[in-house]
């Protein structure tokens, strides 16, 4: 069981780079990289809200539960 972060898929769909997203969301590139590579242990609602706002998507588009 794992929560999969599909940030790279959404970035590809929006044709946006990771650094561009980091700038728009106002979080560090290293933190965003932690999220993208699935190393993150937790995610703040505020971060999720900003990412959804910038990528114009729903939380479910970024996070996915797989058994």
């Amino acid at each position, binding site marked *: 069981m794992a929560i999969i972060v599909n940030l790279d898929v959404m970035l590809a769909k929006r044709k946006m780079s990771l650094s561009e997203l980091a700038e728009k969301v106002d*979080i560090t590139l290293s*933190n*965003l990289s*932690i*999220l993208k590579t699935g*190393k*993150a*242990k*937790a*995610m*703040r609602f505020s*971060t999720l809200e900003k990412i959804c706002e910038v990528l114009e998507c729903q939380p479910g588009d970024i996070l996915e539960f797989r058994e």
Partner: protein
Amino acid sequence: MKPKFVLSFLRIATNILMWVLIVFTGFLLCVSIFNIVGNDKDRKLSGKNYVYEMTAFGEGQAEQPYLYAADSLVRYRTMANRYSVEIEPNSAIGYYTIFIKLIFMGMGIAVLWNFKKIFSETNLDDPFKYSITKRLKILAALFIVADLLKLTDYFLFNSFLRQSVTTPHLGLITNTGSGIITGLIIWIIATVYRKGIVLQEENALTV
């Protein structure tokens, strides 16, 4: 008082104390070897004996009356059941004495070395580290083992001594218990500290 200043002081103090203890242990070892080798073989008490303060119990000694200070706020009396016991270094009990003394000093050096490492590795901006938890657990074990050793020494030394001195019934003056309590407290701190490491890691990986 600033924590950084206290930490610097502790770093220096533990370092100095540790080296003083190492030098003192080395000195004691040299003196003991010299005593064992240099003493004449007929095993008579010389001027280089190990001195212990001991108490005699169960002898029904008469208690001395109290003497009072001028303001009557303090009273004192001589202890009738206290003995100064001298042991010849070149004997079985003498060998045992130096052996146990060196073990205790070695443990003291190990405790100070671990404290020195903890204080040198501590960074107040990033305090939680696995190496410090490990050292705290070693310290806890050292304190507990030292106290158990002290208890074992109490029984062994007394049984050794009672082979030579049957009356009065002498007992070594020792204080056990504090090491076990200190060890357990340090172990709890190490456990809490480890939880702190997990929280720090989680915080670092929270986006």
